[in-house]
């Protein structure tokens, strides 16, 4: 348990490799991102399915030029991102979403490489080893790990156990396991023993630091209403 986001991210150094949970703006570690902005840490590599929008999420760290490389599957909601990419200020590595999810899962689960069919015959396969298996071709993909994983959950306990809400689970559980240091922020932090052990999405063993966040904005990208 740590006091808050500023303490939680205090030792993240310039040049660190980070994982940030979330899909779009859903389930992103809002408080930790704010603390990283305040801290001003630079030259970050960010592994995250998306790169936020211009004025929220990882987009805020792009604006302040704290990120030098993004590893993502989809980055199409961000004009500042586009500008930096075209000007060469920012590097980007695009990975098929399922491969990204599985590479992170492999990082946490101690599996250095695995085979997947995604990307066979496309530019994603360039330079990668292929294997045939039962008449189908697969790519050998390697694990991804991070110096720090920043995840966001709905409820957490003092033992580090996490429960996510709705589709805010997404990349958070795999990232929690793949970070050398995992920092979890939760909307509600309860004493160990308050959560049902069979409903834990992320066991506490993966979480090194946990704090109760505040002022969640939970922005919606595509508010779509039924008439």
């Amino acid at each position, binding site marked *: 348990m740590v006091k808050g986001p500023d303490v939680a991210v205090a030792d993240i150094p310039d040049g660190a490799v980070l994982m940030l949970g979330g899909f779009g703006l859903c389930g992103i570690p809002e408080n930790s991102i704010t603390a990283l902005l305040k801290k001003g840490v630079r030259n970050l590599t960010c592994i995250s399915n998306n790169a936020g929008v211009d004025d929220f999420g990882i987009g805020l760290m792009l604006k302040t030029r704290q990120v030098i490389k993004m590893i993502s599957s989809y980055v199409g909601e961000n004009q500042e991102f586009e500008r930096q990419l075209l000007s060469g200020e920012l590097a980007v590595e695009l990975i098929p*979403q*399922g491969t990204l*999810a599985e590479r992170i899962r492999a990082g946490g689960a101690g599996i250095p490489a695995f085979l997947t069919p995604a*990307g066979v015959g496309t530019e994603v396969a360039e330079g990668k080893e292929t294997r045939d298996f039962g008449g189908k071709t697969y790519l050998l993909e390697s694990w991804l790990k991070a110096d720090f994983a920043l995840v966001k959950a*709905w409820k957490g306990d003092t033992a580090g156990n996490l429960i996510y809400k709705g589709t805010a689970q997404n990349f958070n559980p795999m990232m929690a396991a793949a970070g050398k240091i995992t920092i979890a922020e939760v909307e509600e932090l309860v004493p160990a023993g308050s959560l049902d052990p069979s409903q834990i999405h992320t066991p506490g063993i993966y979480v090194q630091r946990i704090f109760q966040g505040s002022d969640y904005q939970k922005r919606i990208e595509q*508010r779509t209403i039924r008439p």
Partner: protein
Amino acid sequence: MLDKHQIARRIARELKDGYYVNLGIGIPTLVANYIPEGLNVVLQSENGLLGIGPFPTEAEVDADLINAGKQTITMQAGSSLFSSAESFGMIRGEHVDLTILGAMEVSENGDIANWKIPGKMVKGMGGAMDLVASAKNIIVAMQHVNREGKSKLLKTCSLPLTGVRCVRKIVTELGVLDILPEGGFHLLELAPGVTVDMVRNATEGKLTVSDAVTEITF
């Protein structure tokens, strides 16, 4: 010619009872509006949900419940929520019965290109490469020709590929075409007011025509 709602409506006829279906962004999303009465179809959202329900009312909107297009949604009875790793395990493991997605180009051997236009901003492939590499059955909803009137049903794709030899069926504004196992587009149905020659002119790749071409009616 079919408009995008009619394309979706025609594709919806391919659904079968008990199907688990992944709908891509754009026209495919509209297919949900035309699921035939009485069919139990479960929609998968690759960001971690089985059982997408209708869009929410204003009061139901929940920022923590979105689909892969980042739209707010609701859940059906019998839904389940899970991680992206589990979700793509489902997809890669061929548990999803049908994938419906859009395309910029499709080739006569079933290659698909739908993620990148060189020289333009690259947004990323998202989950499309995983979906097309693993789907048991893929139907593509697309325009037959581009704005300049050039065919998008090609001998070989000119754009960077999303996947190879994976598309089975295409529904365009002009009609319904299968991709034959040996390669080649095979015209099955025509949109109202469309002739075989119109399809022939709009198709660059090899085209054969079914002996029993029918007109799509709604």
